[in-house]
């Protein structure tokens, strides 16, 4: 068993202010491993400010961690040079939130697909390049004739997002980081995009990190889930267990607030505590304690992860009778 990607105690802090440094911990002591042999879809969920996009930026090597290491196939991604770096750039691909902002409006969509082919020398001739483009577009459920030669403004949001996935697929990636890929796409098209992502994992063996605040889609696409709140892991495990039977008060609140498209399943009764303006930034201990209905004295200290079952753990003192697990072993909880 070898690791495709490993987060080793990664912390990322953003500082601001010239005279008095104010620092915000965006991600605190995160460890995560992805196996190279068994491609899986892992969801990272959380609300705005939970650190989920920071995680994506770190994964892609766009920012450096304040402490800790990110290893790709055993090597720190920030020490990769030359060919190794190119390989990393090729094998780790991203699909971003806004399908409107990533296209250059002056070029036809062919440009977006031919550039990576040329850059990574994927094809020897023009016809081979064309074949590759057609193949990738077909794989994401687009008719090449419909999209090739068109300008971005002539395509719908769903089509553009699928072209982005096709571009990533062209490079035969090992890992795809999808940061809110469907949040700006019409609900009726979401299903198509999710199905495409799912197909990538099944048919092409791509591991996917699916970053979202939408637990409904997370439930449908992922195998495992990590719930973040203000940079800390609140709950993690098998997506079925966590969504159907959440244990951490924060996860409960999140799941209670999902507007299920089901007339017989109403929004929960759990009251949303505290106005946001009353939240103090610097609460020590459990980050959720200021909003938690079950808060205890003990919560002034940071709770460790308690193991609830083979594939579920929560970072909450309500479960302190359960054995703790080392945060570095988080990945053992996640089923593939």
């Amino acid at each position, binding site marked *: 068993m070898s690791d495709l990607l490993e987060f080793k105690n990664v912390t990322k802090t953003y500082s601001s202010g010239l005279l008095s440094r104010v620092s915000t911990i965006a991600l605190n002591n995160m460890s995560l491993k992805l196996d190279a042999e068994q491609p899986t879809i892992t969801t990272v969920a959380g*609300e*705005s400010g939970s650190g989920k996009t920071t995680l994506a930026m770190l994964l892609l090597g766009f920012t450096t961690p304040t402490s800790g290491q990110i290893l790709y196939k055993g090597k720190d991604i920030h020490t990769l040079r030359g060919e190794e770096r190119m390989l990393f750039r090729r094998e780790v691909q991203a699909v971003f939130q806004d399908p409107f902002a990533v296209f250059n409006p002056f070029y036809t969509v062919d440009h977006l697909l031919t550039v990576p082919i040329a850059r990574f020398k994927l094809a020897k001739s023009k016809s081979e390049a064309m074949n590759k483009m057609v193949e990738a577009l077909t794989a994401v459920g687009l008719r090449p004739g419909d999209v090739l030669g068109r300008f971005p403004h002539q395509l*719908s*949001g*769903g*089509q553009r997002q699928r072209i982005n996935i096709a571009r990533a697929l062209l490079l035969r990636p090992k890992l795809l980081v999808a940061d809110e890929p469907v949040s700006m796409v*019409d*609900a*009726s*098209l*979401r*299903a*198509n995009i*999710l*199905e495409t992502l*799912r197909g990538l994992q099944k048919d092409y063996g791509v591991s996917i990190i699916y970053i979202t*605040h*939408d*637990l*409904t*889609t997370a*439930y*449908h*696409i992922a195998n495992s889930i990590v719930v973040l709140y203000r940079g800390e892991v609140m709950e993690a495990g098998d997506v*079925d267990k966590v*969504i*159907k039977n959440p244990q951490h008060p924060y996860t409960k*609140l*999140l799941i209670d*607030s*999902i*507007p*299920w*498209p*089901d*007339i017989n*399943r*109403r*929004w929960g009764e759990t009251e*949303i505590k505290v*106005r*946001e*303006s009353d939240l103090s930034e610097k609460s020590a201990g459990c980050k959720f304690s200021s909003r938690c209905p079950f808060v205890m004295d003990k919560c002034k200290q940071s709770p460790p992860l308690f193991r609830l079952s083979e594939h579920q753990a929560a970072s909450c003192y309500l479960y302190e009778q359960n054995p703790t697990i080392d945060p570095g072993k988080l990945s053992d909880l996640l089923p593939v």
Partner: protein
Amino acid sequence: MTPVLQVNNLQVTYYTDAGRARALDGVDLTLNAGEKLGLVGESGSGKSTMALAMMRMIKPPGRIEGGQVIVDGLDLMSLSDDSMLKARLSKIAYIPQGAMNSLNPVIRIGAQMVDAIKAHDQGSSREDIEKRCKQALESVDLGANVFKMYAHELSGGMKQRACIAISILLKPKVIIADEPTSALDVVTQRQVMETIDRVQKEIGAAVILIGHDMGLMAQFVDKVAVMYTGRIMELSSVRDMFVDPKHPYAQALIKSLPNLDNKGVFNGIPGMAPALLQLPGGCAFHPRCSQVMETCKTQRPPSIALSGGRILECHLYSEKA
């Protein structure tokens, strides 16, 4: 009970270089006081145009071609521009998409609220106006201290609630909310929707919620109207819509929704919405429809009323009726 809002045959056309696009193609709608209607549809189906047309805020190259919007017995389309200015906010209020970006960043929230009241009501004293503003803030769960704050000091959800507070200042009869929570996360979204729900009950206004999140609709509205290429394909009570949708497009829309029981099953709607410039003949949905018939390709289905206030535009049902 007389309806508080009545829309008759509303038509909007955008005149572009490539031709005329009929964004609203004769829409009828009736809403009683206190009722909540959800307006759903894909991008380009005309739901935002509908909101803008009701506010008479369509800008060129768009033009309102005809129809009536009657709020509380007053036809907005017949008003002079000055009277329409007065009617906005006092009769009909609009919470735009991404409303948090519509707050002025260099003016305090309070001053923006006072402005809104003064534009309609010059008689009141300063203290009285300020009191009304603070009450409105209080009713959306924001402290009175927000009155003195700037937009950047508030979080996304708080800004959205501040916009709701502005929209209810003059107790309008109709509130139109265009995707009020599309940029917010689930917990904040629920807070905002519960806020709209509460203030709506307090002032007894009718609410039109525009969006494409069917989940939100199931939780919030009483009636749902499904739009497609500028027409209402089906309008029914929220329960009927979710339990037994009739129109094939509505059926596909409901089937595409993720639920707890159908993990890993994705039922997207095949094809894409047609461009408004080249609408297919007959029923606009026929190229994507799973139950298409010969008549659908040539004849536009008439609007038919079923029991329970249900309205449909589909040949499948017109034959039986």
